[in-house]
């Protein structure tokens, strides 16, 4: 089904949340909470597990819209007659809290509200989680992964359905602002439901130039024993904004001249945690062993997909390097 939208901000297409959430509970949930809870149900079901060993959430701004509603009431009602539901919905960590409550999960629970670095930070946290807190190999966490520990990626929510399948953008500057919820189940061990292996995640903040970014990307690959030629596909965060896309072009020209390049934001739009969409998309490509031609920006879709590097940046300040491999 093709829908036409106008403007620079597209609404998320909400599914019928009642298929995952009891109607008595749904009435106290804001939109972000419903998306998170529904996505967690889907991902846990796909992974075939009941309760994770940790719940780690990354959200760019928390439940900011609901926080605004609550603060507005605080002012207009002069700090009086404030309702508990508005407060519950306004807290930054309410999504992870609701998931834990519904699962009866008393394990580690944390939420990162770090703007464009939220998703990557939660991945970093998973690294510490596996290395320091939960040494058992069978540990499973809802959302996230780690660096240099080769933790297989178990299953992901298909909450992509919440986002649009493809956005035909006619805006002159960049992909429209969008949103979405993506939740992953990570496991220390591969099983039959594993989609891909999340090999490494790193963040780079405010590099001085395209050249420095290129050097950092090379160093990232070298730390993982790789060269650019080992990458089956570079999945870049092009968003249609010439200022942003020229940055990708410069770095690709320097070190990825012979590497097929794809993009993902023409499918999901632009938003601070769009890297999570890229991870979902890359995991699907690795599992199926092919990349859709519609995703390609340079070159043909690779015949063999063994390893995908995701590189996304926000205003050239916040950079994420994420490496996924076939498992």
């Amino acid at each position, binding site marked *: 089904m093709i829908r036409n939208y106008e403007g620079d901000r597209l609404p998320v297409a909400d599914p019928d949340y009642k298929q995952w959430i009891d109607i008595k509970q749904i009435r106290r949930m804001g939109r972000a909470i419903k998306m998170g809870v529904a996505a967690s149900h889907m991902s846990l079901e796909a992974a075939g597990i009941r309760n994770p060993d940790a719940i780690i959430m990354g959200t760019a701004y928390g439940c900011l819209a609901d926080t605004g509603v609550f603060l507005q009431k605080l002012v207009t009602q002069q700090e009086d007659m404030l*309702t508990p539901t508005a407060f519950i919905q306004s807290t930054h960590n309410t999504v992870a809290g609701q998931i834990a409550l519904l699962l009866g999960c008393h394990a580690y629970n944390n939420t990162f509200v770090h703007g464009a670095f939220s998703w990557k930070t939660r991945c970093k946290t998973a690294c510490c989680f596996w290395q320091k807190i939960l040494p058992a190999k069978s540990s499973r966490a809802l959302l996230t992964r780690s660096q240099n520990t080769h933790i297989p990626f178990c299953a992901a929510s298909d909450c992509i359905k919440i986002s649009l399948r493809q956005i035909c953008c006619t805006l002159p500057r960049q992909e429209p602002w969008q949103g979405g919820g993506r939740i992953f189940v990570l496991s220390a061990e591969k099983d039959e439901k594993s989609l891909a292996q999340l090999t490494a995640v790193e963040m780079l903040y405010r590099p001085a130039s395209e050249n420095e970014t290129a050097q950092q990307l090379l160093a990232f690959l070298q730390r993982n024993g790789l060269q650019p030629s080992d990458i089956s596909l570079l999945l870049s965060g092009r968003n249609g904004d010439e200022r942003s896309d020229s940055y990708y072009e410069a770095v690709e020209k320097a070190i990825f001249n012979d590497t097929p390049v794809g993009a993902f934001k023409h499918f999901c739009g632009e938003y601070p945690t769009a890297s999570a969409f890229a991870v979902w998309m890359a995991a699907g490509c690795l599992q199926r062993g092919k990349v859709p031609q519609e995703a390609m920006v340079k070159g043909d879709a690779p015949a063999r997909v063994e390893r995908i590097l995701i590189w996304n940046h926000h205003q050239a300040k916040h950079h994420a390097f994420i490496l996924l491999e076939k498992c």
Partner: protein
Amino acid sequence: MEKLMQDLKEQIIQQLNLQEVKPEDIGDDQPLFKEGLGLDSIDALELIVLLQQHHNIRIAKPEDGPNIFYSVRTMAEYITAEKARQA
């Protein structure tokens, strides 16, 4: 009293965001909590705010809450009595 009970049902549905519940689905004497409408302790706080916002009534004794909020009729009776007392 009938008009007040009808208003209360609409206010309860709106305040508690009771999706798919219509005013006619709520009986005048139907218990609001547990086996009735199935409300819980957070809803009780919402109902206290409802009384303040829509009827300018503050509950002086919290221990009276279970009796006041037993049903739509008991809420209406309490509001009527409080309005009379304030007048």
